[in-house]
């Protein structure tokens, strides 16, 4: 029957056309960024035309923007804001403050993500894609041009590594945290004021008779991106760069670039001695990391306690920008205050005024 033959012939042709179309998904314009995984040659491809830019367009562009300025279409909702690669201030690195991070630092952030922020861990990206992305990120800033390769801080000197019982490390860390580094200036103190004084005296510092208000809560400070952020309360907040001891050590030793968190390695890399023996040693950085980790482990997965007591909501409203609105310009010179902070490793550090920020929030919130 004629009509039948026609039907089957048309069907067959149509099927062939469909299959032919399926064979080359990469040809579609909609799909130009899709199959980087398959036709990607090697990690050393030119980052601007190759795998790096394709992967950037697929995974990163929504938040970090096509120009790498951290102002992608989703960025107006995000606090902290996405990193501005044009400025190349990277918070989490294993290098000295002010230096560009190691490639490993960037790829670690890409694969592990930053807990508590919109930066997901891209654990399923194949290593060559991550490498290509790192190279692509570097194309956004001229700071990377001709810069000598930074050297990572020592990370293999954990004196407590072989000791299964970390009690001693944690106790030492608590003493350094409160009595030497005075972390409670921004982070909460986790002990009473009199206990802080005991630690201060034990480390040959003068006892203090006045402490800041709300000593057991975090203080908010501005960062170089113009955002006001609370220092983490370890029993409550996620720690961005990872909660394992190595990551905590890295953050303490190298500091967090662009924020009030200073680099601590210089304060402890040379043993300080007095008549009675050593006051601080490089190993104390690790002790602090163990202490902070012990605090993190006290954080409940879910909060069942009386919410009005320990978990009073902190006043930190953040304005959602209008579409296309540019973010608040950051303060100009980012590195200077950090350096100052570093050199005075004692209690004289300028203490951010809490009440000022509260009013700022109120203003932001009102708009």
């Amino acid at each position, binding site marked *: 029957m004629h009509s039948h033959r026609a039907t089957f012939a048309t069907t067959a042709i149509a099927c062939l056309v469909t299959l032919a179309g399926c064979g080359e998904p990469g040809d579609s314009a*909609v799909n130009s960024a899709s199959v980087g995984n398959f036709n990607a040659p090697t990690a050393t491809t030119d980052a601007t035309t190759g795998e790096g830019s394709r992967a950037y367009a697929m995974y990163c562009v*929504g938040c970090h923007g096509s120009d790498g300025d951290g102002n992608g279409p*989703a960025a107006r*909702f995000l606090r902290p804001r996405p990193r501005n690669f044009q400025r190349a201030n990277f918070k989490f690195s294993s290098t000295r403050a002010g230096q560009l991070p190691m490639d490993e630092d960037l790829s670690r952030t890409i694969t592990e993500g930053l807990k508590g922020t*919109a930066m997901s861990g*891209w*654990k*399923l990206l194949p290593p060559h894609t991550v490498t290509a992305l790192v190279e692509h990120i570097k194309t956004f800033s001229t700071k990377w041009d001709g810069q000598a390769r930074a050297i990572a801080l020592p990370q293999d000197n954990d004196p407590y590594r072989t000791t299964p019982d970390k009690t001693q490390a944690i106790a030492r860390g608590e003493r350094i945290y409160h009595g030497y580094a005075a972390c409670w200036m921004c982070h909460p103190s986790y002990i009473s004021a009199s206990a802080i004084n005991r630690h201060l005296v034990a480390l040959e510092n003068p006892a203090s008779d006045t402490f800041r208000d709300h000593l057991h809560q975090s203080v908010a400070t501005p960062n170089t991106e113009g955002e006001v952020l609370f220092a983490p309360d370890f029993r409550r907040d996620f720690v961005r760069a990872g909660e394992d001891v190595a990551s905590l050590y890295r953050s303490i030793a190298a500091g967090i670039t662009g924020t009030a968190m200073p680099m601590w390695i210089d304060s402890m890399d040379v043993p300080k001695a007095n008549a009675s023996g050593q006051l601080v040693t490089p190993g104390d950085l690790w002790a602090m990391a163990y202490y902070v980790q012990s605090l993190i482990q006290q954080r409940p997965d*879910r909060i069942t306690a009386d919410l009005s007591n320990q978990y009073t909501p902190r006043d930190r*409203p953040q304005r959602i920008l209008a579409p296309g609105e540019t973010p608040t310009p950051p303060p100009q010179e980012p590195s200077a205050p950090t350096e100052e902070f570093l050199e005075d490793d004692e209690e004289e550090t300028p203490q951010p005024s809490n009440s000022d920020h509260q009013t700022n929030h109120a203003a932001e919130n009102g708009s």
Partner: protein
Amino acid sequence: MTPTAPVTIEADTTMRSAHTNPVYEKLVLGYFLASLGFALAGMLAGMFYSLQFLQIYPFTGIELFSPGRWRIVHTTIVTYGFIGNACLGALHWIVPRLTGRPILTNARSLVLMMAWQLILLATVAGVILGQTRAVPWGEAPPWIAPFITLTLAMISAGLFIPFFKTQRPRPIALWYFAIPLIALAPTHAIGSFLPQHFASNTATGITGLGHMVSLFVMPLGYGFLYEFVPLATQRPIWSPALARAGWLAAALSFPIHTVCVFLCDQGTLPPSLAEAIPTLWTVGTAVTVIINVFATAINQRGIHPAHPAMRWFLLGTLLYFVGCVQNVFGLASSLYSAASSYDWASSDWTIAHSHLIAFGAFGFWLFGIMTYLLPKLLGATKWYRTSWNVWHFRLTGIGLLIMFVDLAAAGVVQQHLWHSLTPWEQSLAASVPFWVVRATIGFVMIAGHMVLICHIAMTTIHGKKARTPEAETPDTPAAKSESLLVAGILILAVSLATVGFMRWNSVATRHDKTLMDLAHEGVTHEFIELAERFPNQFYEYYPNGPTIESFASALALGRATFEAEACWHCHTQRVRAVSQDIARWGPATRADEYQNVLQRRASLPTRRIGPDLSKEAGRRSNDWHLAHFFKPTDVVPTSVMPAYPWFFDEDDYPNRRGLAVITYMQWLGSTHPESSDNHGEGPHEPAATTVGHGTQH
């Protein structure tokens, strides 16, 4: 579309008393026309919805046109409107004809038909207004569901009475209809009412696809074929014995399915076998009808469609065979290695299968019936133009074939990408060309359907009027003994009653956690962060701040929103026990994780288009969700998820629903021991996460 009632009734009553024609033809016509109208609407809804996959959905941002809701409209009106109405129309023609007895009174039948259409329209309205619920194949708003059960019970009772009372020997086609007529109302009650109010879905839901197949697609479809293929070929069925064997197999299909699910739940039967046995049983049953249809159609000159309707029956049966092969292929690949198996069910492979069976096989059979009956029902001797029949067949058939090949190929590609653990975004991007073909081919199928609708209009206007009612061919031969029929019905009735009782019993003996139980397990950090970040909005809706009570209330609204927007159609809340799932989303989900009031309904969507959400808590931050709900493509350029601007106020701050749905997202799996380690999608084996970072220690 609706026959004029009083006059017709009188005319037909007189006819019936004279034993001329027990069929109330205007009612059948009404069902058919309603069916075709819903088919058109369903195809249009599906085509619009498919544009969302190409990121060119024309109504983005309009709540009432949300693609998620229209996804439900598509499946609901295709299933209940197109297929349901067409089946009811065909049954109202066949049953009186074979039993020689009318169905109810004409007025009552008419009222029930109108009620069914009203229910469907109300369902569509409810779904569009966001009152749907996460019950697969029972998405009608909760307040409509009892009416559906009731109406189905009355319609099937009306059809069953002549079946029961007839003095004539019952031809084989009638036997098949016994199964859906018995099962229709109880299935809806058990599958739709219980999950809404009581039961969880720890076992496969009774209205799940397996039961849908064994209780409705198989017996109805086979019955139609055994009635209409002899009519259209003017030839008796090739092997009545095979048809009877098939009937017994079909009647046993549901009990076998149920027993396998039960044994699997008890841990006696491995899941792979629990899936394999019913599938193979179904395929074996299918073979009986496939052989019989083709053997009947073949004469000395080869396959010769005596009637335009035969095209539909033959192609439909062929596609049904393809669907069986496809199923066995998917099954074989999962039996080969269950732990590392491809997850065919979650890919477009399944969408290919459902369109092939629901539209290609079942829909085509129904088109065949309508092609055969409509001219008679319209009072014409034949169709207006035979060539129009051919074009309807060509456009629809080719469209469906291309859609099937296209989606099956998409499923293979998606499976490959998922299996090789590439980031989810890649599987979306790689699917786009296939989705372009699917949306395009929708136009062709709709064009084919328009040909049919125009053809009906032209036949009504210009068709040559039939002077006398046309005589049908003699009935298919009836069996001498009906003991098989009785046995099959008994087995089916007993198994339905058992399932109903077991479900009820499981409800009575199990305690789902209440909302407050869940809230007392602890408030999430993310909930408090929402209060900190959006105090103005948060305290407006929850004046007491983040308390246990406000958390419970936000969770309830969040889950309601998740159901209303049909999120569950694209996002599973079940990590299957296959390696690729576990690697992406953590340990396989245990049944007891669902024993709470929020999750007892659907955790099994029809197709996993987005990632699994069962351990979503903490995987992404609140502000990520915020940006993503506002406009998913802002965050993930390849995303095909709809935007939900109605979760936000005019300044783009989250409103009550926005806060609630994020609270729900950040709760999912938060009580699971592994949840705090979640961050992003990725390998969960401890060994894998430490690779490349060993130097830091």
